[in-house]
């Protein structure tokens, strides 16, 4: 279930953020999503906040929380699981 969620997140991120030539298999669960990892930017961070709301019904009360939540696929999956528990 956990790895299903992580796989789903990878596929959604690739599609939502138009990451051309990146496959889900190339994203490790603990790869940094920003900076040297996938190289996402501040607009991508906003898109991820919208994605959490739209696809998982999770609203971030404080966008600054995103910094920790969006560190990696691992942290995103953990946050979604915890929010739904």
């Amino acid at each position, binding site marked *: 279930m956990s790895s299903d969620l992580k796989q789903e997140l990878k596929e959604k991120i690739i599609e939502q*953020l*138009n*990451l*051309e*030539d990146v496959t889900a298999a190339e994203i490790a669960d603990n790869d940094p999503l920003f900076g040297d990892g996938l*190289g996402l930017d501040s*607009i*991508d961070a*906003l*898109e991820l906040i*919208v994605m959490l*709301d*739209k696809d998982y019904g999770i609203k971030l009360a404080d966008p600054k929380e995103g910094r920790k939540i969006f560190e990696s696929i691992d942290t995103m999956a953990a946050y979604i699981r915890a929010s739904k528990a």
Partner: protein
Amino acid sequence: MENRYYIESFSHVNNGIVSVNGAPVFKTLETDFKSVMKLAYKQLIVDYPKFFKMDNLSKLGLLAAEVLLREEWEKNIAMVFSNRASSLDTDRGYQDSIKDATHYYPSPAVFVYTLANICMGEISIKHKIHSENCFFVMDEFSPETLSSYTEELMDENKAEKVLCGWVDVDNEKYDAFLYVVAKKGTFVHSDAEINRLYKTTHEQ
């Protein structure tokens, strides 16, 4: 009157063809905009994945500019662009994301492109250009409007060169014609010559 300025080079993107100075540098039989841009990117731009995050207008403008600026060393290049549809192609997509109150998920990545001049910003970022820019929205290509503004910029020493032209996308119809105005060049910078080059490329 003596001509003070010249057209150094020009590009055109239309009907699956990218050309420079009238000579095709890329051709495809694909007809849908997305496929044409993707194939042209792989051949002419290559290592700039941000391209795929851009809206259609920025992709078209960046591609038409890339073939003119990739070997350009001058950075004091102003931009004077024009089109008919402004950012309508993107505006419609954004409107779709907010029209339903129960599924109201405005996309930040789409919203940032709901202005036509963002296209010039993307070109500036790619080519590290810090300069004057202006985007005119008009019914049809108008050399007079662009040439007078361009010559004013150069007369006032606001720029060493000016990247000018027409970049228009709307509902899969796309058309770009860009040209670089400089103090030296192949073609005289006159309304008649700009019009001739614009029409020449359209007759290919």
